[in-house]
Each structure stands twice: as C-alpha cells, then as structure tokens.
C-alpha cells in the first residue's frame, strides 16, 4: 500500500490545485452565497471540471470513465477542499457514480455512468431521516405495487437534492425501522409525481434539501442492487464516500493552517511577530502533527480503495478511522483558525469563517467522529 502519491497522481494534484486557485477561489462560494444563487454552484466552473475529466475520475473506462481510481479522485477532492469549491463533485461523482458503479446492474451502469462523465446527469443520495447520520434507521417505505414500488416517507440533509436529475433513495421494503435487513435502494426521477423537494439553506452555503415522498411510484427496474439486501452494498458505498469527504476535509484544514501560519509570520503585537509566542507556537506544532496524521490516514484509506485485495471489512475500518480522525482534527483546526487570527478571524470579510462553517457540515456528513469511533470499536470487536 503506497502512502506517497504516484507521479501521475502528483501531476493531477498540481493541475487541480492550479485550476482551483485560478478559477474557483473561495470568493466564488462567497458570490454564490451573497447572490442567493438558485443552483448553488457555478455552472461555468463545473463545465470546466467536466472537461478536465474530473467527473469520470474513478469510473472504469468501460463506462466512459478514466479509471484513475479513488486515489485520483481523492487528490482532486483535496484540492477542491482548499478553496471550498461548491459543485456536484461530491453528490454526483463521489457518491452517485460510486453507488451506480458498485450496486447497479449492467444496463444501469451502461446508461447512467457515461452521462455522469459527460456532465449530463446529476444525482443526490436521499438517505438520512434524522438529525444524526444513521444509515440503517430507515422508516421510508417502498411497497410493492403493480409494475413497481410506491415510496412514502421523508429525507433530510440530501445534498444537491433540489438540482439533481435523479435521486438515489434508500427505502425499506421489509423489516423493522432499525434493521439492516429489508433495506433497498431505488433510482427515482427528480420530476416524479408525489415528490416534494425543499431546498435548505445551510451554514456552509452548499446545497442541501429536505424531501418528502408521497406515493411516489417507480418501475420495477428502478431498483438499484438487491431487494431487501441493500444495506451491505450501501454501507460500502458510504465508506468510499466517507473516505472521499475526508480527502476534501484534508484540503480544507490545510488551507486553514496555511492561513494561520501566514498570519503568525506577519502580524505584530508587543513589538514582535505573534508567531514568536510559545503559547501559539506549540499549538501550531501540535496542529501540524495532527494534520500530518490526517494526511497519512487519507492516503492509506484511498490506497486501500484502489488496492484490489482490500476486503470490505478492512475498508470499513479504514473509513471509520479516517472519518473519525479527520472530523476531530478539522474541528480543532477550524476553531484555532478563528482564535489565532484574533478579531479579524471573526469578520465575514475574511475567508476563515467559510471554513469553520464547512467544517461542521463536513463533520456531520455520513457520520461524525463519535459515530465513527463507535463503529470502529464495533468493527474491531470491542
């Protein structure tokens, strides 16, 4: 398992860095927020990202992708994290494409994946129903009706729900609300009758929504993966997504830390640079160490995804380890990001606020650190 980037990955990372700095700095997100943009992302930038091949990064060549693996997508996410790029990259490319590639039948993959690569299809995963992540606690039902299923229930924290063309809905076809048994996934057209999608304005200025399903009827072939047995596959898709989101968090925390260092080397108080105060130096040194650990965790997890021999159980441990660690450290770094900047850190004009807002949303998404420590313990048999 290689923990250093390959030459190809390094080149990709450099070009992604360049692109984000030039074309998608934090000011773009600020603009989207201030103009209350309907879409919640910049179409022009997204088109360029499609042209760069980012949407097909981890998709096999057989389905029109570029087969660069999750290591490739990971370095792109790390760079987009540095400038807080708001785009369908996470909901569609990381989550949606992975779900279809992992769980879809041949026909679904043939039809849908090339559309994602080409930027013609946006997806949203409708999973959680409660204020904290819990992928097996599903009350939304899918009942068998003539020629298909009828969906009823409600979902929350659905990223890109209001702009997606297609929803990937986690619903219960049997079993109790808390059971891993009886969970199935469905592909649902965003224009389907009975859907009520309400955009929610989140603190990080990124897209999210609440969705209600009232007798939403889908055809038999809308089933993604096996009926009743969807949990296992879902969980492995979520693990990949958790690792991907951690890669983005890694980029964001590095950007905050860079900003801190720059400030410590430039701001003078008491007649000296504040970076010479040991009270700040040691905290900076500790943050540096924690970020180095995060980098290693993300690299190891991404490498694990691309390594053909890694078992699902090993990936689950890597995913929970990584998401738990990154969530904790991003919490620390985003708080210190404000504190060490003093009064300036509290101003909206300064970018640091965007990062702490993003941090809390990313921490929650697909399980916060306590969710993942609990899962890690369970996976390790204690």
């Amino acid at each position: 398992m290689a923990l250093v980037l390959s030459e190809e990955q390094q080149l990709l990372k450099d070009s992604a860095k360049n692109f984000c700095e030039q074309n998608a700095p934090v000011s773009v997100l600020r603009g989207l927020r201030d103009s209350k943009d309907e879409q919640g992302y910049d179409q022009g930038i997204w088109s360029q990202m499609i042209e760069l091949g980012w949407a097909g990064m981890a998709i096999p060549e057989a389905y029109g992708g570029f087969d660069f693996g999750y290591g490739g997508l990971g370095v792109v996410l790390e760079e987009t994290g540095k400038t807080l790029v708001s785009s369908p990259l996470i909901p569609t490319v990381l989550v949606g494409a992975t779900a279809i590639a992992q769980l879809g039948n041949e026909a679904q993959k043939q039809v849908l994946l090339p559309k994602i690569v080409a930027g013609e299809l946006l997806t949203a995963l409708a999973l959680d129903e409660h204020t904290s992540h819990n992928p097996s606690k599903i009350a939304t039902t899918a009942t068998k009706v003539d020629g298909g299923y009828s969906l009823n229930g409600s979902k929350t924290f659905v990223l890109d729900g209001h702009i997606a063309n297609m929803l990937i809905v986690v619903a219960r076809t049997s079993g109790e609300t808390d059971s891993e048994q009886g969970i199935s996934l469905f592909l649902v057209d965003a224009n389907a009758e009975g859907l009520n999608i309400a955009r929610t304005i989140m603190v990080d200025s990124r897209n999210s929504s609440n969705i209600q399903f009232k007798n939403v009827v889908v055809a038999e072939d809308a089933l993604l993966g096996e009926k009743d047995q969807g949990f296992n596959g879902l969980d492995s898709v979520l693990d990949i997504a958790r690792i991907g989101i951690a890669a983005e968090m890694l980029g964001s925390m590095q950007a905050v830390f860079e900003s801190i260092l720059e400030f410590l080397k430039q701001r003078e108080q008491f007649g000296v640079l504040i970076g010479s105060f040991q009270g700040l130096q040691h905290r900076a040194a500790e943050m540096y160490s924690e970020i180095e650990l995060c980098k290693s965790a993300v690299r190891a997890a991404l490498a694990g995804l691309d390594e053909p021999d890694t078992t699902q159980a090993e990936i689950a441990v890597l995913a929970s380890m990584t998401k738990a660690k990154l969530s904790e450290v991003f919490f620390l770094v985003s708080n210190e990001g404000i504190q060490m900047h003093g009064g300036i850190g509290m101003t909206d004009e300064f970018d640091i606020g965007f990062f702490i807002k993003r941090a809390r949303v990313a921490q929650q998404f697909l399980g916060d650190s306590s969710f993942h420590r609990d899962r890690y313990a369970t996976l390790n048999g204690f």
Partner: protein
Amino acid sequence: MQSQQAFRIETRAWLEQNCPKSMRTSMVQEEVVWGGRNAEFANPDSEIWLQRMAEKGWTCPTWPSEYGGGGLDKDQTIVLGEELARINARPALTSFGISMLGPVLLEYGNHQQKQEHIPKIVRGEIRWCQGYSEPGSGSDLASLSTKAELQGDNYLINGSKVWTSYADKADWIFCLVRTDFDVPKHSGISFILFDMTSVGISTKPIQLISGSSPFCETFFDDVKAPASNLVGRLNEGWTIAKRLLQHERTMISGFGLSAGQSDNGGTTSTISSLEGTAMHYRGDSKKLSDPVLRDQIARFKIDADAFAHTSKRSIEESKQGQGPNATSSMLKNYGCELNKRRYELMLQAIGSQGLGWEGEGFNDEELQLTREWLRSKANSIEGGTSEVQLNIIAKRVLGLPDILSLAQK
C-alpha cells in the same frame, strides 16, 4: 540486484531455518539482548539468534556490508522487516550503538573509526552509552561544560554527566565535551568516544520511580581519551550531536507503534491488546460495557493507526539512505504521547489489579505493567522533552520566528 520477490522467498526460508522457536514470541523485559563485553542471555536461544542475525549483518540491515552490516537497500529492508514481523520475531539485538551511534559514525566518522567500531556494534560485542545531559544542561544541551583539553596524543576529560542510561553496564561512551569555552556555546563542542574502563571514570546509579535503576550519574576525573577518538572535526561536534538526536527520536517514536517492538521505553509487555485486556478484566464478551472507556480506547487506536501510517509514510518519503530529518521531532513527540496514553488506558482497563507493586495477589504481567506505566512517563523527557520537540517543529518545520533565541539548533 535480485528482485524483491526472490529476496522475500529467500529471506522467509532463511528465517524459517534460523529463527529459534522461542524467539518467535513477544519480547519480555528480562530477555532483551543488549550485547556488550558482559552480555547476558537470559534465554539461551537469544544468543544463537543474535549470532545468526549478526553473521548476515541483519542486526543492522541497511549498514554497508564493508563494515559488517546487511548492505540491504530500502525495499529489501522493508521486506526483511515484514518477514520478521510475520513470524513475530524478536529483535536479535537492542542497543544505542544501533539506534544512535552507528548511523552518525557512518556519516561523520573516518574509515579507521568505522572499521574499529561498526562491526562490533553489528555483532553486539560492545555496548554503548550516551554522555549528553549534565546537571546544568538538560534541554539547553549546548550549554554543557564537561571539559576536554588536548595533552599530547590524548584529551584530558573532566566533568560530569547525568541521566546516563546504562552507564554502569556500558563498555564505551559517546560523549559531548566542551573543547572551546571562548566561543558561542554551539561552536565549542566536540564529539568523542572513549572506553568506560578508562581510569578516572565512576558511575552512580539513580533509582527511577518505576523502581529500577537504569541510569546513572557519571563522573570524569582526568580521564584520558586518545585524540584519534574525536569524531568529525574539533569544535564541530554540535552538528553530529543534533544528527544523533534525530536518530534517537526516530527510535523513541517507535514506542508509539504497536507493542512487541522491544526497547527500553516500556513497550515489552506481553499484555498486548488494550481492548482485549479491558474486556477480559471486566468480563465482557461482545462489547466493552464501559462506554466511556470504550470511546477512549477507540480514539486511542484510531490515533495509533494514523500514527503507524505516518511512520510508514515518512519511511517511504525519505530517499534511500537519507535518514531522518526534522519531522523526527513530530514522530518522537506524537509517538511518546501515544505510548503514555496507552499505559494510562491499560491501567484503567485493569483497574486495581494494575496497581500492584510487588508480592502476592498480582501476576507477573500485572506487576510488570505497573512498572512500565511509570517508566513510560520518561518517554516525553528522554531524547529531548516534548516541549523541546514542539519548539523544533515550530522553528524548523513551520518556520516560525525565534524571538527568545532558545533554538535547539
């Protein structure tokens, strides 16, 4: 150069043949092999194991074969490490010669010095100790005042060292001495080697809170050391001293990796799995019943995993033969703090059975744990304190300004 796969097959076969069965179990404190003129082998198999490993140079796998080392490249060394780990092989030899002196002697010593000392380190024939700290010079090591004056062909050494680990058991010492008192403190230090049986050396053991006495006060009274034993150039010893500390820190950071990697850092306990121990003592079967302890153990293990990946990444990133750099301070600091956390959690897991000091009512492992827990507190002091490591990271890695010029350069 043979392929990695061929090397793996060959190595596996050799280990299968040559590693005694009892050497394939977790190390216990009393059986750690330190070598030296008065080497002790509490387990007779460890003598055989040392002799066989030393013959191949695999006690020091990366060192040049010219001086008795293994002559392996980085990839082969990784393979050897993996194959040793696969059979849970004990380290054949543990010594300050391997982890500290050897690497700097190879970098800064002259041919004659290497020829004289390196093979003996590889074979565990000479045991070394480290004469750095003094009563007045701990973190501010460069303020040291043990004096060495040239008299004919010898240096005459006077002064004292403190906290010298195993000074009473070591055969030779690598020592920092002041050879010029009239220049800035970093510019008057030299690095010299001498025999601990020389006339004028005395040692006095100091007892630790763990009850053992592994280190000493060391006194030099007109000790004569041949001038040819000076390593590197006169008054340029500080560079070597710092380089050696990087190696020492890398070694100590290994305490943060999983147990079984024997050393004197308190990591030889055979009670290995933290969660297994906690469940055993609490009589839990599927899930640890104390949710707070469970969460703390999970957090610890997650940090330990991420740390292990970081150690591995730092090895992959370092170019062949380049050795450690300032990031060794990060690894040292984090590894030590992890090791201390591990022992605290271990005590919590075991409860009152982990607090025995001696005698009846406790088994050997429990008693050993108490002592190791206490010993682990030194991890963040020895080899430069945690605060000093954070200073180094702030200055050397992050480039933060050094207003008080307290630099550990």
